[in-house]
């Protein structure tokens, strides 16, 4: 600094002196004090400004001119300025311009004081304050010098209107000189203000000046304080003391827009945004404006980092990629914007000061960035919301912005969505028309499990990924889409049917462009229609194949006929044939024997006219044998299913069928046994008439038998009509109405569930089932008891017959009919029979009938408590004449029973 000062004194001093002479018009010798004064001022201020910005100065000049309504002159000026630049002779163009500007309008009026004031307030630099050696002596001299000027300038400096005020004006100048020298805090606004002031009428000018000066005159020679009272804002934490040329700021902003740090605008990680550097002085308003503008850069960075971090990730998937592509497109648009802006800035730099009206300013930029800012904001919001998401979830996340109220934003989202939905749509079309799942990255909402083989293709292989269903699709639609593709796969792989879906070619042609229909369903039903038609078409196709080629209905009927005992004659005959074998212990059964018997039964009955395929599938199966089981417990019919129909008749459902068969088989057996009992009763009735003592027992047998027959008949009625036929009818209706395979499966499931629960095979009815089994056991016991009784009775009858025949024979031979011994023996045997067999049988029957009745009563009570209404009807049927109730009324006092009886009465 010092050397520069020296330099200034030595070389340009002569010029300066010349200048002094020229202006004052004094000869060389008398000009000395002025020269000294000028030298001091110059040396004290001899420091180049930090920013020697020509553009800024020229802009300011233009503004000044424009403010005075001299637009033409402003244009002229810019023309001249351009010329000046083109000539390129001057080094310090800005300095010359600045000088001229400062001196502007001083030519004629020579308003010393105001322009002095304004010039003093002009650009001062903080750097200057510290870097220039500040000599109090100089200031003192300066002050005295100024003081001396008071005397001379008092009347001339200020306009003549108010000469009385001059005395108060000058001290201001006194205090202002150092204030400028020391602190020199100033900003554009002030300057503008002072400029304006300059242009206001002289009177008000003086007054304001006076006020201001009065204020500062209170604290003269304390420049810092003066400044602080004038511009309290300038003591803010952000330095706002001087201006960086707007052009530079614009250039920096262009960098910031692209997320690059500029010369002044740096990324502030604490505030998470681009900020003008703290120590750089610019007005607060500009600072704020720049903060606002740089939001673009921040948003851009966010979007860009998302793209860079994800687009390189191969596992991110197609949806993510297309999202990135969409973002890229938007950013390209943004780049275009930046380029245009940058070109504008560059153009203005090259051209010097551009047209006042067309030039790029921060405010203009703020207007221009409005749209890109909105776009970027939306993009950044999308990016935020989509972080870590992929596939359908990503699409859903974007779709949630579709309802944005701003149509501008909506169209942006719409465009992005169209891009994002394209891969989803493509996959979807492939899926519903070809059944092919091209989903390498697991983005689609249909998931396929490659480990599942064809047997379980329908049920297990494909599933919906709930999270990946775009929210614009309803669950029902997703289900249909899943079903459609699944049906095609099922047709192809399991049914081996390769007919292409109609309309496939057309759909493939339309392809990608239709992606939009997916998320604009509220206004456009094309997508829904497409899904529906393909779904219907495919499902119908599948069902046709299912019914015609695989005869699903035939198999269903076979199940009903054989496993659910629908074919009465066959079952009856089979039971006839099997009776002997099944009475053996289960371990003695041989499957091949049983299969042979089954074959015989088929041949002998109407079953032989059934489809040979169905009959081939019919087989015997022995359940797991536990000790003590007889053949009856383990015997079961089986029906083999394979191929597509296995989808409906799954192994699980087959087990259910077997359970139901087992139950029905038992019930059937009871019927069979009771028929035998009845047959015996009828046939023995005559022969046993000869022994009148047996009548009581026979009567008892009849009563018990009749009771059992009634019970079993009602149970059978219930099973056949209320359970099987009803459910079967429902099932058939549903199967005929079914739209897709899932409906059939569901209907079948419902059918099985109903049958199982109504046949008391489910968990809830376990107690009742046990009760029923006990009753069945009692029936079997009764059968055994009765058989034993009949056998012994038969024996007795035959003995008596023999005895009678022997008597006749003896009589014919002429002997005594009976000898004493024989009579005694006969009597003894008779007595034995009457005394042993009859009472024991009687006792046995009494116990049996007693326990049977107890059991049935218990059973009825249980039935009435059962939640299923149908079972209550059964109890009503069983106890239609309130026989059991009359016998044990106290047991039927349950509220339900009470209600029932009340209703009956």
């Amino acid at each position: 600094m010092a050397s520069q000062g020296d330099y200034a004194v030595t070389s340009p001093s002569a010029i300066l002196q010349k200048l002094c002479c020229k202006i004052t018009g004094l000869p060389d010798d008398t000009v000395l004090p002025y020269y000294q004064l000028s030298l001091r001022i110059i040396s004290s201020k001899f420091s180049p400004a930090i920013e020697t910005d020509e553009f800024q100065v020229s802009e300011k000049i233009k503004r000044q001119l424009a403010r005075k309504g001299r637009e033409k002159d402003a244009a002229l000026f810019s023309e001249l300025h351009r010329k000046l630049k083109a000539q390129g002779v001057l080094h310090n163009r800005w300095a010359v311009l600045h000088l001229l500007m400062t001196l502007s309008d001083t030519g004629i009026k020579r308003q010393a004081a105001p322009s002095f004031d304004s010039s003093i307030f002009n650009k001062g630099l903080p750097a200057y304050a510290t870097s220039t050696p500040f000599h109090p002596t100089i200031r003192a001299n300066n002050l005295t010098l100024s003081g001396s000027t008071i005397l001379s300038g008092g009347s001339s400096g200020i306009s003549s209107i108010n000469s009385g005020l001059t005395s108060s004006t000058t001290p201001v100048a006194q205090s202002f000189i150092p204030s400028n020298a020391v602190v020199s805090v100033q900003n554009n606004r002030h300057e503008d203000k002072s400029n304006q002031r300059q242009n206001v009428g002289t009177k008000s000018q003086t007054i304001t000046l006076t006020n201001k000066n009065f204020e500062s005159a209170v604290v003269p020679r304390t420049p810092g304080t003066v400044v602080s009272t004038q511009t309290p804002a300038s003591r803010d934490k952000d330095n706002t003391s001087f201006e960086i040329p707007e052009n530079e700021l614009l250039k920096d902003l262009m960098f910031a827009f692209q997320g690059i740090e500029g010369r002044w605008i740096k990324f502030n990680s604490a505030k998470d945004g681009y900020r003008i550097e703290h120590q750089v002085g610019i007005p607060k308003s500009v600072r704020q404006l720049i903060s606002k503008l740089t939001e673009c850069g921040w948003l851009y960075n966010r979007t860009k980092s998302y793209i860079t971090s994800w687009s390189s990730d191969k596992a991110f998937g197609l949806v993510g990629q297309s999202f990135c592509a969409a973002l890229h497109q938007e950013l390209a648009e943004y780049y275009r914007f930046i380029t245009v802006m940058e070109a504008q800035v560059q153009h203005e730099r090259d051209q010097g000061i551009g047209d006042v009206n067309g030039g790029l300013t921060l405010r203009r930029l703020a207007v221009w960035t409005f749209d890109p800012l909105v776009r970027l904001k939306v993009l950044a919001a999308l990016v935020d919301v989509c972080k870590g998401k992929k596939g359908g979830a990503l699409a859903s996340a974007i779709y949630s912005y579709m309802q944005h109220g701003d149509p501008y934003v909506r169209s942006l989202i719409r465009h992005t969505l169209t891009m994002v939905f394209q891969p989803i749509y493509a996959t979807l079309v492939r899926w519903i028309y070809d059944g092919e799942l091209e989903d390498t990255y697991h983005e689609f909402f249909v998931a396929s499990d490659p480990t599942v083989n064809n047997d379980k293709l329908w049920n297990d292989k494909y599933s919906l990924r709930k999270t990946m269903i775009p929210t614009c699709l309803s669950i029902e639609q997703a289900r249909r889409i899943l079903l459609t593709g699944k049906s095609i796969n099922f047709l192809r792989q399991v049914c081996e049917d390769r007919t292409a879906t109609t309309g496939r070619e057309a759909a493939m042609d339309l392809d990608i462009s239709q992606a939009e229909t997916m998320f604009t369903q509220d206004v456009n039903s094309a997508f829904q229609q497409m899904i529906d038609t393909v779904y219907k078409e495919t499902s119908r196709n599948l069902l046709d194949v299912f019914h015609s080629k695989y005869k699903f209905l035939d198999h269903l009927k076979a199940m009903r006929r054989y496993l659910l005992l629908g074919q009465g004659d066959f079952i009856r005959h089979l039971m006839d044939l099997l009776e002997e074998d099944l009475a053996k212990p289960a371990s003695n059964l041989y499957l091949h024997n049983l299969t042979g018997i089954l074959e015989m039964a088929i041949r002998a009955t109407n079953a032989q006219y059934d489809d040979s395929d169905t009959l081939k599938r019919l087989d015997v199966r022995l359940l797991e044998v536990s000790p003590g089981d007889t053949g009856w417990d383990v015997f079961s019919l089986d029906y083999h299913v394979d191929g597509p129909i296995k989808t409906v008749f799954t192994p699980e459902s087959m087990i259910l069928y077997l359970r139901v068969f087992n139950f029905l088989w038992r019930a059937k057996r009871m019927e069979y046994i009771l028929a035998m009992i009845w047959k015996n009763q009828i046939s023995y009735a005559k022969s046993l008439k000869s022994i009148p003592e047996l009548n009581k027992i026979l009567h008892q047998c009849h009563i018990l038998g009749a009771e059992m027959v009634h019970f079993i008949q009602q149970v059978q009625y219930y099973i056949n009509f209320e359970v099987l036929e009803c459910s079967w009818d429902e099932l058939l209706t549903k199967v005929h109405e079914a739209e897709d395979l899932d409906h059939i499966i569901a209907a079948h499931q419902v059918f099985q569930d109903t049958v199982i629960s109504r046949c008391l095979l489910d968990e809830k009815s376990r107690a009742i089932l046990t009760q029923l089994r006990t009753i069945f056991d009692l029936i079997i016991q009764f059968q055994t008891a009765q058989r034993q009784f009949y056998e012994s009775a038969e024996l007795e009858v035959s003995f008596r017959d023999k005895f009678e025949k022997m008597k006749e024979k003896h009589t014919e031979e002429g002997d005594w009919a009976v000898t004493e011994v024989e009579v005694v023996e006969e009597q003894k045997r008779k007595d034995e029979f009457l005394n042993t067999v009859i009472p024991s049988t009687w006792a046995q029957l009494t116990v049996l009938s007693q326990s049977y009745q107890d059991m049935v009563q218990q059973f009825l009570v249980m039935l009435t408590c059962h939640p299923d209404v149908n079972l209550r009807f059964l109890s009503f049927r069983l106890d239609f004449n309130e026989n059991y109730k009359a016998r044990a009324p106290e047991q039927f006092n349950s509220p339900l029973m009470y209600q029932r009886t009340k209703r009956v009465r």
Partner: protein
Amino acid sequence: MADSSKPRISSARETMETLMEISSLLNTGLDEETLATCVRLCESGVNPEALALVIKELRRESAAIKENESSQQSTTFS
């Protein structure tokens, strides 16, 4: 900035003409000679701010002198 250390006379004159035009446009009240002097000072690196201040001061002083002269009062500078 364009750097031409050897100004040719013609272009120098042109420049001066332009500057003069600007000067008159801005109503600075500088005549050609003063302007040339100022430009030289500026070119040699003098702070234009200070220079402007000097010119204004000088003008004021000279005005005062003239006034003094016209009123036939003699004042001395200390």
